[in-house]
């Protein structure tokens, strides 16, 4: 990447942090442009809200909410970056819940696994044990909802990288479709009684 390209990206991304919601709302086209630019560049954008340490914990949670198996999960979809961006744009009101929630996560981790340094240091099985303990909390639900939105919303918002979420659910985003759409309407068209019938 050229130095010019990099500085433009950093400028736009850094310009978002710390500004008020009204400004963000009025300039979201610019913000989106920055996001799109960042996503296209091939490497994850810089974090605008989380510290590196917080980011590791959030990503470890997201990774259990939509795990990676033979298909990409929250990690490959870069849900962390969606969440980071959401917390500095549309979901500023949820900023406070993350630092506190991550502290509670740490407490629960040490309660269940006293020898573990942090949640993200646990293996998958133990992470699931911790998250199952807190799955009824508002914080867990916030992370869950953010992760799902990051996985399935438009890539311009930082998540759904390479449209991996849409690929999983078989969603074609071309916004231009022709019938037949699915198995059953195609079948109806190919049977004699349905031949030529449009409904």
């Amino acid at each position, binding site marked *: 990447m050229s130095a010019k390209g990099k500085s433009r990206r950093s400028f736009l991304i850094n310009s978002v942090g710390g500004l008020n919601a009204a400004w963000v709302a009025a300039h979201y086209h610019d913000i989106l442009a920055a996001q799109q630019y960042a996503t296209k560049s091939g490497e994850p954008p810089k974090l605008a809200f989380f510290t590196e340490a917080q980011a590791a914990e959030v990503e470890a949670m997201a990774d259990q909410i939509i795990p990676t198996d033979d298909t990409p999960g929250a990690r490959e979809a870069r849900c962390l970056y969606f969440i980071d961006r959401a917390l500095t744009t549309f979901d500023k009101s949820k900023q406070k819940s993350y630092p506190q929630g991550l502290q509670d996560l740490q407490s629960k981790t040490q309660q269940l696994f006293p020898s573990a340094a942090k949640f993200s240091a646990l293996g998958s099985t133990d992470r699931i044990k911790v998250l199952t303990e807190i799955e009824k909390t508002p914080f867990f639900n916030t992370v869950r909802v953010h992760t799902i939105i990051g996985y399935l919303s438009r890539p311009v918002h930082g998540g759904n990288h390479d449209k991996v979420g849409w690929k999983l659910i078989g969603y074609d985003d071309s916004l231009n479709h022709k019938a037949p759409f699915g198995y059953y309407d195609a*079948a109806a068209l190919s049977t004699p009684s349905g031949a030529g019938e*449009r409904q």
Partner: protein
Amino acid sequence: MKQYKPSTEVDFVVIGSGAAGGIMAKQLSTAGFSVVVLEQGGWGKYGKEQEYNKDEWLQRNLSDDDRLMSDPSKQRNTFRRNDQSKAAPGTHSYGCVVGGGTVTYGGSSWRHLPYEFREASYDHTIPSGTGMADWPVSYEELEPYYTQAEWEMGISGLRVDSPFLAPMTKDYPVPPMPLKSSGALMKTAAAKLGLTVVPGPLAIISQGYMGRQGCVNCGICSGYGCQVRARSSSAVTMLPLAEKTGRCEIRVKSYVREISTDNSGRVTGVVYFDAQKKEVRQKAKAVILSANGSETPRLLLMSKSSRFPDGLANSSGVVGKYVMFGNGVVANGLFEHPLNEYKGVISGAGVVDYVPSDPKRGFYGGGRMTARGYLTPLELGLGGLSPDAPKWGAGFKQALRDEANHRMTINSFVTQLPVETNRIDLDPDVKDDWGLPAMRITMSTHPDDKKSMEFFRQKSIEILEAAGAKKIWAPPVGESRGGAHNRGSCRMGNDPKTSVVDKYHRAHDVPNLFIVDGSNFVTGGRNHPTLTIQALAFRAAEHIIRDAKLGNLRSKA
């Protein structure tokens, strides 16, 4: 666009630019009258529809300028079940943009059947506790205006002769939208169960019509503006024609707080807040109130004066009463093969056999069952999976994979009976962002309505079973709540003691005030109101124009 000074007395002020207001503006201005349309919302993407948002995350975070619906945190409203309880903050919302609710609606455009205009004399005992009455307008009188609405707006559909469908004198102007998999499955089931399936008539054109292009089945449909102008909203059909006359001005962000009258009891104009919340008084010879079935009665109740102490046009006391928001019930099924319901329009084919009420069922009510299954990616991920699917983890991901595009939903649109105590009035404590009394909704569910909903819930399950669903779930029947299909709150009738407007939409109490929108409904039909609102508007306009041309258009007695 033509601009009028507020001090200039225009022929008509039209309050609202939606399903009815758009038609009134176009018809009156085309007939040669000067018209000012006051719209509470903004322009939206009027004239540049290709810029409409199709982004789900943005849709959940719209800026004030991009909103297409009212904001319950500003256009505040409250809700309670009965007069004994205190109303709590409500979530009622309505189309609030040039074009109103037609900019974002699913587009269902079913006609009412002939007997839906005379349900009180239908072969049935009138359910107790309801204000069931016949309409002063018959289907036969309204039929030419249904045709006019279908052809002027652009409705796609298939004319079918059936006792469960309204008889038509002319075909639809464009063919129906393509059959979807949900419709194909409904037909499979209907063949086994002996039911009638027809394509849903939609205010979405399936091919080019009147200079607009046909639907491209983008799939981000109901709730979003249409980028290709295939949805036949007031904003792409009526309002551009009204503007072209050079006699119609559309003023956005205009929040009307009062319809003003003089000592003789005639309307002289309206007072509204402009975008800066500055008061403006617009003079008019007559006012057309088309603000929707909940805002219309609220504005009348706010327009109190010494001559009209209970609110304007309310000597009967029924303004706001009998409001209906629409009942519905949902059942879902998962199927072996992909349906890909996210492509195309939201509402496809419909089972129509249960539209008539049947005394043998033991309750009054009917409904129309529509085949759906439309889930956008976020709707799927955040609440679209079957109820026992895990909420996170490997099981959640597997459910996403397995259930995506395999779901069909049957949405039944069911009778809601007109109940006097179900009403819109002014909240005594809560104010909106303009300092005006908030709308208060009082709404309980008639026992027959609950039975209707349960009947359709069971029928939906039968259809899904017959269609071969692998898994079926249907949430229990709920209580009536708010909703977009608000109607019935300024009913029309021949008797000024029991109705608000006459059969030509003139307020019984005020000769130069006309109320034209869903509030005029006497009974609620089967909860698909828009085409009937549009037909009523075309008919009302014809009579208002005829009367005005006879010299009866004036603000002075």
